[in-house]
């Protein structure tokens, strides 16, 4: 399985990757990283993703715009998405859901929370 992590902070990206790799040791999971919305768009055609995790506040295009693009795309619309952002943006959370994002994770989160939501997203036990 392959997932895409879109996040502009490199240490947050490293942190997410470490948690995900640690929590999904039992499946064959590959993580592709993108440091911006543009990078995510550029990466998409080169892989088949089983899930996408994205931050909201990013330069270039924000996470919501990325979700909007994905959920309106004939091929990508079936990829489940988890939006990761902070508690201060409750309005953004509603919009992410309205655009069709399947999961929403509030920062800061516990490692277990992320893994649980990711498993739900990937539909694995």
């Amino acid at each position, binding site marked *: 399985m392959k997932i895409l992590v879109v996040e502009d*902070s490199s*240490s947050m990206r490293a942190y997410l990757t470490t948690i995900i790799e640690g929590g999904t040791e039992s499946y064959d999971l590959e993580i592709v990283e993108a440091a911006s919305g543009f990078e995510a*768009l550029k990466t998409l055609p080169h892989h088949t993703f089983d899930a996408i995790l994205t931050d909201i*506040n990013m330069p270039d295009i924000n996470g919501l*715009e990325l979700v*909007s*693009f994905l959920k309106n795309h004939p091929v990508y619309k079936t990829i489940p998405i988890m939006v990761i952002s*902070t508690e201060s*943006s409750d309005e953004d959370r509603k919009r992410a859901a309205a655009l069709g994002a399947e999961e929403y994770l509030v920062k*800061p989160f516990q490692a277990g929370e992320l893994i649980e939501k990711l498993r739900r997203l990937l539909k694995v036990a």
Partner: protein
Amino acid sequence: MTKEDDRAREEFTSEAEELLDTLSRDLVEFEAQGKNVRPEVVNKIFREVHSLKGLAGMLGFVEISELSHNLEDMLDRLRMGKIPITKDLIDLLYDSVDSLNRLVIAINDPSLAGLVDVTNLASRIHRTVTSQPQQKVEDPFSELTLDEQTKKSLTEYEEHRLLENVRAGKYILAIEQTFDFSDFDEKLRALTSVLNEAGEVISTLPALDSSGGSGIAFRLLYGSMLNEPAVAALAPDARVSSLRKDTSPAAVAAAGAAMTPPPPGGTTAADVAAEDDLSSLRSMSQTVRVDITKLDHVMNIVGELIIEKTQLEALTRQLTTQQQRMAAHELGKIARNLDRKLSELQKSVIETRMVPVGQIYSKLARTVRKVARELKKEIELTLRGEDTELDKMMVEELTDPLMHIIRNSIDHGIEPAAERVAAGKQPEGRVTLTAYQQGNSVVLDVKDDGRGIDPEKIRQVAIKRGVIGEKDAFDLQRAYEVIFAPGFSTADQVSEISGRGVGLDVVKKNIQELKGTIEVISKPREGTTFRISLPITLAIIQALIVRASGEQFAIPLTSVEESLRIYSRDIRTVERREVFTLRDFTLPLLRLSDAFGLSDDHDHGPDTKWFVVVTRAGEKTVGLLVDALVRQQEVVIKSIGERLKTIPGIAGATDIGESDIVLVIDVGTLIDHFGGRARETRALAVH
């Protein structure tokens, strides 16, 4: 604390310092623009604090997380126009960033932790936030024809910016353009920056290429004082349309007049400017992050200075008359001092470019886990020498080749577990990466305890792929060469990790581009070591200047073993190749004038004197036959044009302070092209 924690802390500290550094600069810009600050500046500051909060929260730095959380909340209101810009507010921002800086430093030096009064700052922020009455939120969409999808994709902040633009009576436009997929990011950033000069790009929504092509379309939401045709001129390839329901000038003017007055009690930009006693922010951090291109620039200047110095020395040598001698003496002294200072400067600049190779170790470890899983092999990876320092650029360029070699070792070197147990080895394959400094080089060894290279098997594969002929001479040394030959790599090496199904030939090419060498040492059944040697830095090197057929050449000293004087009669011919017996070793010779097609005007009598420069690249040596050794000096390598790049044996050009440009020899590719000989054949062979 575990090593993992240490690493996380280190990464956090470095990113936090970087964020705070940018934040300080953005604050200065904010202050300079005062009340009329561009919204994207405030938003950028908000985003930076937001990132810092997220990071600190994840890693459990409570004080940093709380302070940045409070600050973020305040900045959020600020960017939404809910609180006014005042001098107090800017002071508060400066104080907060200063405190955040201290808290970040205190992570590594807890004795400083007491210096920050987080509670006091929190209450100041609280007062600023609560002193402002809540404003009622208007619907920015009522005057616009905006599609649902765009509406839904706006963040709360973008919606606020749209509202501000509507209120200010700006033209609200949709700009749609389809880009080629390969470079949409560059093109779109360029377009956005042009548009931001004359207005505000509020949102950027990607969409499918509506023409059914393979590009990607973007729909920008843009607020500007410019009207449709004016914006269309700025974005000639885009479709521009107005989103206002009524775009008559009267409506725009009316909307402009309806612009809300500044909140009561707010200060103006002039007020802020008048009180310029804002305390300066003294950073306590001992670290500065610098763009590598700036260091490149400094390095270039150092290079130019070295050339100037050489010219000074040359000039000094020309002063010979009695009268001039005193001056020459003084000048010589100055030149020597300058020389010393320049070497110090050069050394310092090189040091600032150095980063530990350990930076890429975690990435490598991840790759190994991935590859091991993919190939269903158990791998025990050991990484050593992570503190070994190397030029930053080289570390970046090194990642791909290293990953490829490691993958190659796991794939082809390490045997399946059963085979290993049968051979009396532990079931887990061992791969060790060791980095260490050796003289002016950094060496990286990738060692595995696998089956080793079987020359016969290599020969079979090479014949099958047409790399060598059925009847070609073949030995262990040749096997080591063949695995780096283009066309040898097997198709099953195409993988996600290396990305492009490249072979070791590409690895070798990459390493050579870094002026390094790669060699392989293998023992059947015991394992293989790939050894990469790299110069510590590329820009300035010590070189031996030699002359051949009237032309001067620079040979990097790192490649020179020794130089000696011989006579024509010492040169023998073995198998149509000129050689020279150096102690107990037969050294192949190469006339530099032949290598570069220069006319040989040298007298060929048996008593003619020659100089042999014994050069070495990896395990191979060749004696370069030249007319004279000129001197030893520092040279600054400059790259040469595309046309000369393809000529083997040339690393670049240099200006040595005289009128002519001198070519710098690349011993590695020279030997590859004209042949050399393994010096320590016996040592290399299987023990």
